[in-house]
């Protein structure tokens, strides 16, 4: 058979990472009750500068980065453990999330020395937050079709265009923006560049896009003759596509793809009481087994990456399965609670929780690469296209 074999070699997180887990857990136990959060059940999209600063003070942001930029030069697996604990304990990690996970690493890889020195230590302290300026009204999954144009002018670029779904732009400091610096709209991957945009720049207008749950996470960011200085170019002019695709690789198989709504499972356990009926236990157990499996898969992918491999297909499969699990979870939990909740009050409360989770669920299979895009990647890996 000529198709590549799917492999998920079981991987143990090293002892020092597990030791760190204990520290993080203890910190969260002490800190979380004192933190104000806008969500009853927080996750990686719940902002809290207060929490991010506290985490930064522990040295757990930019944990893998070089010491010269304030990092701890710890392993990528240590970072994984911190991430798992933030998600597993429903910490409001939204303020620093993108900066720590995606923008910082991008600057480290492609940014200028000046950019790194100016920005990375602030991210590490939990004080500097980022948005992602990729999607546009006419460019979603087809990112290479972006129209936002940065026209070279003396000392920098004049930027015109519109970005959408820009999470947190109204409260974050910077937005790494994918723009066309040369060529035409139809040139696809050529002529794209990334700019480090200060969201306070004159000519940059931020308007809310309210999502179906009434939340203001997204924004529309409009550039009208906004002047971006030349020292804000990230990497080389014209290398934007290469940089963006490497950035997207950070977006796939992490625990955020199956632990964003772990609170539903936790609350389900609570509402079902200590001795549910056999049938109920069995369904609960199946949900737990799915979550456990996803964690094994994600850890295996981390192990492969640590070993220098780039398991793109496996990572895509984790996101596909993980996000669909997160969509199934509130539905299964809701019906289970309806028949088996121990008290009426608990049930009413839980149904509100589950309802909210169901409402948020469509976003999981859209953000960070839709299920359909992922399946295209997997199909290519299977040699089908």
């Amino acid at each position: 058979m000529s198709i590549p074999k799917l492999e998920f070699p079981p991987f143990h997180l090293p002892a020092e990472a597990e030791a760190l887990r204990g520290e993080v857990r203890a910190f969260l136990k002490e800190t979380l009750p004192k933190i104000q959060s806008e969500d009853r059940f927080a996750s990686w999209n719940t902002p809290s500068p207060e929490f991010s600063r506290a985490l930064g003070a522990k040295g757990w942001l930019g944990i893998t980065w070089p010491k010269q930029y304030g990092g701890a030069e710890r392993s990528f697996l240590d970072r994984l453990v911190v991430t798992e604990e933030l998600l597993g304990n429903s910490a409001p990690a939204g303020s620093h999330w993108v900066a720590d996970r995606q923008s910082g690493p991008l600057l480290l890889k492609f940014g200028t020395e000046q950019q790194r020195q100016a920005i990375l230590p602030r991210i590490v302290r939990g004080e500097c937050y980022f948005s992602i300026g990729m999607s546009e009204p006419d460019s979603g999954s087809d990112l290479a079709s972006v129209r936002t144009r940065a026209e070279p002018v003396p000392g920098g670029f004049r930027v015109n265009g519109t970005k959408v779904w820009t999470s947190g732009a109204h409260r974050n400091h910077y937005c790494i923006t994918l723009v066309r610096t040369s060529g035409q709209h139809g040139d696809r991957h050529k002529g794209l560049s990334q700019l480090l945009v200060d969201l306070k720049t004159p000519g940059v207008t931020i308007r809310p896009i309210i999502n179906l749950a009434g939340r203001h996470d997204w924004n529309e960011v409009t550039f009208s003759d906004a002047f971006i200085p030349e020292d804000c170019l990230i990497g080389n002019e014209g290398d934007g596509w290469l940089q963006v695709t490497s950035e997207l690789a950070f977006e796939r198989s992490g625990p955020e793809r199956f632990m964003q709504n772990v609170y539903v499972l936790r609350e389900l356990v609570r509402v079902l009481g200590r001795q549910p009926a056999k049938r109920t236990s069995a369904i609960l157990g199946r949900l737990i087994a799915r979550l456990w499996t996803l964690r094994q898969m994600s850890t295996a992918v981390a192990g492969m990456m640590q070993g220098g491999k780039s398991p793109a297909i496996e990572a895509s499969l984790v996101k596909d399965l993980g996000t669909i699990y997160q969509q199934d979870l509130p539905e299964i939990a809701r019906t289970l609670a309806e028949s088996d909740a121990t008290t009426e009050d608990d049930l009413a409360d839980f149904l509100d929780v589950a309802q909210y989770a169901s409402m948020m669920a469509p976003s999981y299979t859209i953000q960070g690469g839709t299920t359909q895009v992922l399946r295209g990647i997997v199909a290519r890996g299977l040699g089908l296209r």
Partner: protein
Amino acid sequence: MDRDTRDMLLETASRFFAERAGKDIVNGVEKGVWPADLWKEIEEMGLPLIAVPEEQGGVGGTLADLMALLRVAGEYAVPVPVAETALANLLVAAAGGKPAGGPSTVALGELSFQGNRVSGKVARVPFAGVAERFVSIVTAGGTSTLVVVPREAVAIEDTPSHAGEPYGTVTFDGATPEFSAATPISAERALELAALARTMQMAGAADKVLATATEYCKQRVQFGRPISTFQAIQHMLAELASYVAATIASAESAARDADEGGLEKGGSFSIAAAKTQGSDFAHRIAALSHQSMGAMGFTHEHILHHYTRRLWVWRRDFGSESFWGEKIGESYARAGKDELWPALSESRYAA
């Protein structure tokens, strides 16, 4: 055994199964033809003794070695009791005994053992129709006893599995074992080990299903082009791959945990979770692979059913997703919500 030795063994086994346990052999077993030559060669290769210590006449491999072999056996739908005999032998060795030759199986269920007599009935014993001896563990009052009962001492009612393998209901009516001994392996643990064996066989079979469906769709031409070029088919196979991946990953993790934690208790939770997961997704794997192959895959002529039917049978063997899921759910409910993540992150039962 070391990594290289194991890889070599697996490669040899893989080639051997491909050559000697082909379609006709699998179909033959369904018609009641016992492939005596195949079994003889499997014994000559030492496969049923892979996890038995050398001083007890075995190959001296680990539980992990055995499980890796069973994944390969699953990949070829090997229609003889490699898993059952290897497991029976492992249990005999753990009780200090020396495994005998010949096909054996495990009869795991409610049995009593008093005055050197075994009594009780176990349904759906795999390969009961061909096993020369039945190995079981009776746990009573906190102590466990392994019993090996010869075929002559039991009554067997044939109840072939839906994959056409000679399963049966075995009645022990005061049967005298040919060997019995105290064992550190409880009846419950024996069931876990058997469930683990099935998860690895399911992983192998799932892998083969994906490969079979993928190859088929690349060959099959409709509307003037290979159907693999249709996005609908591509996405179906990608989804299939995700369930196959989950089956493989959970099985491999459970095998690792079982091996590292020791024969007597290792990977208890992981096995339960993996058997739950594998059994849960067996249906989706079967459904998507059959859908992608249309009527062709639904024929007896094609080999796809060798694998999909086994997935349907194996998900039920040694505890289904309901059985193991209930154990997990019960434990996590008892422990309460705050134990959920700590227990899950350590791959253990919560209470």
